[in-house]
């Protein structure tokens, strides 16, 4: 059994080495939107403009600080770069019912989905929330950041502006 496990690991690893593909795409997973409708993540798009995918939860303080801080400047961001923020709540049945009232109550203008079985979180290998990904106009993930400190949104927005101007980011991942 140990040999078999090793063999399957080797096979997966060999897939990795034969792959010259350096781009990272959004994995396909089903989520629920705030209307209760199932939406596949492969349909995420922003007409060739950058997208931010942010994982958060109603019980996570730094997540809420981050999204509330961005909410203050979001209107400007959208106007200047056309960026769209997609907020993925990983709340389960305990809190998922509170997501829409919280989002509306705080006046967030984001596109919000609920990942209550955490399938999307697993597919993107997120350890802890908050975790932010930046997607370029071609739908490739080009930047990520784990955790949140006050002011992190400035670094994120610098990257958004570069993408919106058609520039490449220095660090690919």
């Amino acid at each position: 059994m140990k040999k078999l496990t090793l063999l399957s690991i080797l096979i997966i690893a060999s897939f990795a080495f034969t792959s010259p593909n350096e781009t990272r795409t959004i994995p396909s997973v089903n989520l629920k939107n705030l209307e209760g409708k199932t939406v596949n993540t492969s349909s995420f798009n922003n007409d060739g403009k950058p997208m931010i995918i942010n994982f958060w939860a109603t019980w996570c303080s730094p997540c809420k600080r981050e999204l509330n801080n961005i909410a203050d400047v979001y209107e400007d961001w959208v106007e200047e770069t056309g960026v769209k923020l997609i907020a993925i709540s990983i709340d389960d049945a305990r809190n998922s019912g509170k997501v829409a009232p919280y989002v509306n109550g705080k006046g967030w203008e984001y596109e919000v989905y609920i990942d209550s079985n955490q399938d999307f979180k697993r597919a993107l290998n997120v350890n802890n929330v908050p975790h932010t990904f930046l997607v370029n106009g071609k739908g490739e993930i080009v930047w990520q950041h784990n955790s949140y400190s006050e002011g992190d949104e400035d670094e994120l927005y610098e990257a958004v502006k570069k993408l919106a101007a058609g520039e490449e980011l220095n660090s690919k991942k």
Partner: protein
Amino acid sequence: MNLTTLKTLSFILVLAFSNNLSAQKLDQILSRGEVHGNFQLDMQYYQEDSLIGASEVPEDVLMNAFANINYINGNFSAGFRYESYLNPLLGYPTKYKGNGIGYRYASFTKEKMSVTVGNYYEQFGNGLIFRTYEARGLGYDNVMDGIRINYKITEGLNVKGIIGKQRLYFEYGEGILRGIDGELMINDFLGGALKDSKTKVTLGGSFISKFQADQSSQYNLPENVGAYSGRFDIRRGKVSFNGEYAKKINDPSADNNFIYKEGEAFFAQTTYSTKGFGLTLSAKGVDNMSFRSDRNASLIDLQINYLPALTRQHAYNLLATLYPYATQPNGEVAFQGEMVKKFKKGSFLGGKYGTSILLNYSTVYNIDSTALPAGDTTQMGYTSNLFAVGDEKYYEEINIEITKKFSKKVKAIFTYSNMVFNQAVIQGKPAVDYPTVYANIGVIDVTYKFKKKHAIRAEFQGLFTKQDQQDWATVLLEYTFSPHWFVAVMDQYNYGNKYKEKKIHYYFASVGYVKGGNRIALGYGKQRAGIFCIGGVCRNVPAASGLTLSITSSF
């Protein structure tokens, strides 16, 4: 020989080598593939500290670590998680000792069907009869091992089928689970004018059955135990209403003292929200609904279902870890209401930069039940009514949170909580020595962004109670230099403890570096014994003192 490993392997092989692929074509297919993963390591060097009750750790150093590696190529994906516990951290389930592959799977989607073999996390509806999930930080992982099929029969109608066994540390439980769940979104299913209707209706139904052989000489135990549930969800614009009802047939187990009574649960929720205002009201009833794939299992082992706690989930230290509520699967009735309101900038209450307020009230009682008289031979235990509230309070909390931005540089969150916590019931302690705790808790959380990228955040927390360990105070200071650095110091002080030798300072300092998907943190200090909860699962963590190292990475 592990069968599912074989299955995983053969799927990879079949997919890669079927149809006599030419080398070129194979190359094309492989070039679309992506490999990603994540890694986490937590290590602690322990020091003996008799003052706080931290005992000696013979290994000196303990470590938990894992890495997930996933391969995705179009509609195919496969992956595994390697886990290493050398030896498990204090407070973590000791049965995790050693190394192993805790999770491996292969999955593909062909047209409307997707198939997963190996391990998978899944839930039906709210999880009242079935939910497998993981909370790695607590060692909770009841993942399935077996087969899962998702089938989209037609627009608006999805069916899921599962069969498998549940993870039990590095092994699998004895019971076999079989289940099916269907979800019908009426608007999409019927189409036509309904598709664009503002009223959206979704209906769902689930059935799950577990099999475990009867090896008891004392009882005649049911070997197949079924549970079923039905749910609905109606939304129209600002309003939503959803509910689920679940029933479980007789399931004598160690949890219910081997009674033959049936189990029941319901969960109902309504919400109203408009820009700047949100309201959620929810209710839940649970009666004899502990459900495990091994009738003798206990603690966090082999739970099949998930009964969400209807109380506010806290983040501040004193609120979250001293008196956290956990659902009582044997019986409880709970209600919760939450309101969020944002006052506009420039309004009287909003001030120049805006103010928002969050109000939460939750309460939990036992269900009204009557024990059967002594000498009863039906083994039914008691009679009860799921919708009748009993007279013993388990928990109650009023929580107010006000967020206010004073200037571009300063903002604060003020929290007040009044809590009633029945520790005898919730933590299973003897009522004589552990009376219900009545506590007032206040938190002031101030952030001062004194320069671009530089901020200081301070938390002042106080917990005031005459019961249990009496009064606590916590001060936390955190300096962040965005986007890479953070330094924090914290002191928790049990200043009100009636025993002088227990008036202890628990200080902790940490420093960390974050870059992209990597995070490294070092900490040193004392951690008090406490209860740490994620989701509905709580774990007792003993006091510890020493140096901690934590690394997470995602690629």
